[in-house]
C-alpha cells in the first residue's frame, strides 16, 4: 500500500529503505558531519497543517535514525534543508537534484555548503532511497 508523503508512516518506511539498501552505505560512507533535517513547509490547503520535520541521523553510510521531530529539535541541527511540498515532490520524483535546487533557491539550506558539495554522492543516494518507498503524494490522495 502506498504511503502518504509527508507522514510518520512514510518516514518510517524511508528509514527502512535507507538501512536495507546498499545505496546509502556506499554513497554516504564519508558522511560524518551530524544530523540533517528536512523540512516540508506547511501548506494547509493540501493537508500539511504545520511544517513537517524529518530528522536524519546518518554516519559513515549508516542510518542511525530517521524519524519526525519537533521544530525545536530540528532547527538546532547542523544541516537544515527547507522547501515547499512541490519542491520535495520534485526531488522524490528525481526531477530536481537537491543541491541544484539549493543553488537555484528552490530549497533553502542552513549549514555549510562545502560540506554538502563534498558529499554530493550521499545526497544522491538519499534521493535514490526514496524510490524504494511506495509513495502517494498528499496532494494526490
Amino acid at each position: 500500500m502506498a504511503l502518504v508523503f509527508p507522514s510518520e508512516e512514510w518516514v518510517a518506511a524511508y528509514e527502512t529503505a535507507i538501512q536495507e539498501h546498499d545505496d546509502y552505505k556506499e554513497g554516504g560512507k564519508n558522511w560524518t558531519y551530524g544530523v540533517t533535517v528536512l523540512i516540508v513547509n506547511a501548506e494547509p490547503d493540501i493537508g500539511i497543517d504545520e511544517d513537517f520535520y524529518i530528522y536524519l541521523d546518518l554516519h559513515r553510510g549508516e542510518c542511525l535514525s530517521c524519524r519526525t521531530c519537533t521544530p525545536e529539535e530540528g532547527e538546532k541541527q547542523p544541516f537544515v534543508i527547507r522547501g515547499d511540498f512541490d519542491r520535495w515532490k520534485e526531488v522524490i520524483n528525481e526531477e530536481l537534484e537537491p543541491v541544484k535546487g539549493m543553488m537555484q533557491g528552490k530549497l533553502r539550506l542552513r549549514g555549510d555548503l562545502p560540506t554538502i558539495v563534498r558529499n554530493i554522492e550521499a545526497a544522491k543516494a538519499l534521493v535514490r532511497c526514496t524510490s524504494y518507498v511506495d509513495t502517494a503524494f498528499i496532494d494526490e490522495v
Partner: protein
Amino acid sequence: VRYPADLDFEYRCPTKVIVGKKAYKQVRSEVSNLGCKRAVLVTDRPLAENTDVVEMVKKVLAKYLAGVFLDVEPDSSFQIVDKAADYARSIDADCVVSVGGGSAMDTAKGLALLLKTGGTLADNLGINLQTEPVTPHVAIPTTAGTGSEVTHVAVIKDVERHQKALLLDGFLFPNTAILDPLMTVSLPPHLTAGTGMDALTHAVEAVHSIYRNPLSDANALQAIRIIRDNLVTAVEQPKDLGARTSMLAAANLAGEAFANAMVGVVHAIAHSIGALCGVHHGLANSLMLPEGIRFNAEEQPELYVPVAEALGVTEPGMSAKEAADRAAQACYDLAARSGMPTRLSEAGVEEAHLERIAEMAMSDGTILNNPRIVLEASEVMGMLKRAF
C-alpha cells in the same frame, strides 16, 4: 543557436542600474528613494586615502551619511563583516552604500544581511535562507570586474578554514548599482587588467555553465565583445572614459549573466588559489581560464564556438574543437596583452600548494555548475599543473 526542448530556467535581475559620467551624484536621491536616511558607507582605507572617490560620495550623501566603515580588506572575512555590522548598529544605520571593488560590495551584502537578521555571519551561513528583503544596499563599484553590484552572491573568506564561503540569497541583490567611469579612472593598470579578466571569466563561465540560458548567454557574449575591444585600452589609457564606461558595462553584463547561470570549475579553482595563496581573484581566474576551457572542451567543444566568435577568433570551416582552442588561446593572449602574469608560478603560487588547491576546489559549490563533471581532484591537479 538552438536550446534543448527541456530548457527550464528562472532569470532574476532586480537591481536598478544607473550608468554615466557623474552618475555617482545620484547616490543621495537613491538612498532617499529607498526610504532611508542613515547610510553607512562601506569601503577600504587605501581607496579613501589614495583617491578622491570616497570623499566625492561622502560629499553627495551629506546629511544622509551616518558613518564610514573603512576596514574592508582584500578578500573580506567573516570577522570583517561582523565588525562592520557592530559598527553599523552602533550608528543606527538604515542602509548600506558600498564604494569599492568586490570585497567592499561583498562585505556590504553580508552587512545588509546581518543588519536585518542580527547575530554574526557564522550564524547565518546557508543558501537562500532569507524570506524577506534585507537592509537596502546601493553599490558603487570602483573596479570593472566582479559584477557584484548586480549579483546575489557574496564570497567571504573563512579564515579559520582557509576557505571561501559562498553566501547566496535572492535577497542579496543590491537595490541600486551606480556605474560611473569617474569612480574607476584611478584604478592602477594591474588591477584594471585583473578585474577585467575577472569579468571575462564570469562571462565565459556563464556561457559554459549547466545553467546557461538564452538571456544569460546574450549578456555574457556581449560582455565578451566589449572586453575584447576595451580591456587593453582601459589598461593603457586609464583616463579614457569610453573604455572605462564600456568595461563597467561589460562587468555588469557578465555579473548579471553569472548571477543567473552561475560559474564553474575555473572559479572553484580560483577561489581555492585565493584562499590558500592570497592571489587576487581576477588574476587567479585569468590564470585558470584557458585551462578550464580546454578541460571542458574535451567533452563539449561546441560550447565555445560562440565564445570564440565573440572573441573574434573564428574562421569559416573551423571545427568546434579548433574554435575552443582558439578561444582558450585568445583569453591567454588578452591577459598577456594586459600585462598580467600568465603562469601560476609567476603569481606567487608554489608547486607544493597545488595538491591542496585541487582538494579544496572539489568542495567549492561552483564546481557543481561545470558542464563537464569533475570526478576526482586529480583532474583539477592536471589543470593546475598545465597552468603552473
